[in-house]
């Protein structure tokens, strides 16, 4: 069901939004939580004032509302592909790698990233950290996990970022 975020959840979300550099942008959005207690999942969605108003009046819940930008898990916000896009567009301070055109194509097939393909990376990258994968237009094409910390992210002939999610899913799952 869709509901408003509790005070505690809002605090957790704001802390994470701050970390991703989208505190201000998200503060201006209409957020709601889609909670599925059977699988203990809390999805974070951006919706509109009008939709929120309708949701407040409705007895029957919609199947989906707004844009799912991530999950609230273990008190942290984990961005979805749509969330990664929001971060890439609106944040100036987030963990990222920029990959070359060849790697862009491979990432969109779900392949991991070789250090040779990384053109640029944010400075404070840690090992085993979530990063937004950007193409050369600085558009989010996926979400990855670093295998090394910043200094080794360009390591030749080695996978340095695992691809967790990629925008190619829209094609692979198309009917």
């Amino acid at each position, binding site marked *: 069901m869709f509901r408003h975020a509790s005070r505690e959840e809002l605090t957790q979300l704001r802390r994470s939004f701050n970390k991703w550099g989208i505190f201000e942008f998200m503060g201006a959005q209409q957020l709601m939580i889609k909670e599925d207690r059977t699988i203990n999942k809390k999805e974070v969605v*951006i*919706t*509109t*004032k*009008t*939709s929120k108003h*309708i*949701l407040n*009046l*409705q007895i*029957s819940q*919609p*199947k*989906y*509302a*707004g*844009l*799912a930008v991530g999950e609230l898990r273990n008190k942290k916000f984990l961005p*979805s*592909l*749509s969330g990664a*896009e929001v971060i890439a567009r609106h944040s100036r301070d987030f963990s990222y790698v920029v990959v070359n055109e060849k790697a*862009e*194509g491979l990432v*969109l097939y779900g392949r991991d990233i070789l250090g040779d393909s990384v053109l640029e990376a944010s400075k404070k990258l840690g090992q085993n950290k979530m990063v937004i994968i950007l*193409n050369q237009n600085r*558009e*989010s*094409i996926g979400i990855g996990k670093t295998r090394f910390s910043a200094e080794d992210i360009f390591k030749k002939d080695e996978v340095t970022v695992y691809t967790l999610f990629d*925008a*190619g899913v*829209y*094609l692979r*799952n*198309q*009917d």
Partner: protein
Amino acid sequence: MKTLTFTPTQRSLHLAAKYGYDEWIINRFLHFVPNAEKMMETMREPVRRYIRTNTLKITSQELVARLVSKGFELTKTVLADVFEISPTDAQISIGATTEYLLGHYYIQDITSCIAVEVLDIRPNQTVLDMASAPGGKTTFIAQRMDNTGSIIALEPNPRRLRSLLFNIARCGVMNTLIYQMDAIQCPNLNISYDRILLDAPCSGEGVMWKDTSRRTRRVPGIISECSLVQKKLFDAALQVLKPGGLILYSTCSFAPEENEYVVNSILKKFDVEVEPISFGIEGLTSFDKTVFDERLRRTVRFYPHTHNSTGFYIAKLRKKN
């Protein structure tokens, strides 16, 4: 109402054999399609393909530059953000580019775009999309509303619902509320709408150009069955449309039973006015022995040979105050 069929003639038999259609389909076309043989001829050519820029994410100027640099050839159309894609030697399919995956455009027939365009959708309105999946028109509506207001999108089929969700996420749409329900039940939601899009389930005659199987494997009964459902959906829609609000009825069918007959029955039953549309050619005012309301002239038809599009029908009605 029974689907009207006609006694085979030498011409209908000849054209059916020549172009590979069932005779009853051709015979019907000969009774209402202007220059029907030219239409058959056009439907032998490669299907025209169009894309619509998703201005929620990119400008048309930027998108065109990016696709041209990848080897695609784009031509302007009657709509500012819709382009025809010409066959080229681009290395990648138009449905598999990074720009497509990132939701910068939607592959969609121009008639579907026109349907949304003429509905005069504005930001902050409440809009009902009665048959939403796979989301081509829904995402265009969101674009017209600049991701504000609310789109109530209905889709009963779980499989089609999934493709709708993918397209909504891909295109970055924030203003939808998606209900898995049959559109006929829309009054149960107790919401009134400024605009309603009823792109009705239909026999799909108009997509024969793309889907050649529809030229033969069909029976006339499907048209009358669809017509019945379409009237019920229209009825339900008018119950939830605000006075002064607009409803756009469309089908991708040539059949008068699914188009003018349906709107004609609505005009008899509800206090609505037919609004003019500045695209297409005027709707039929008669079919065989049936004469329709004169106002049906303001509804419009699109044919492959006149508009380089799928066959389409649009009626725009305003509910009186």
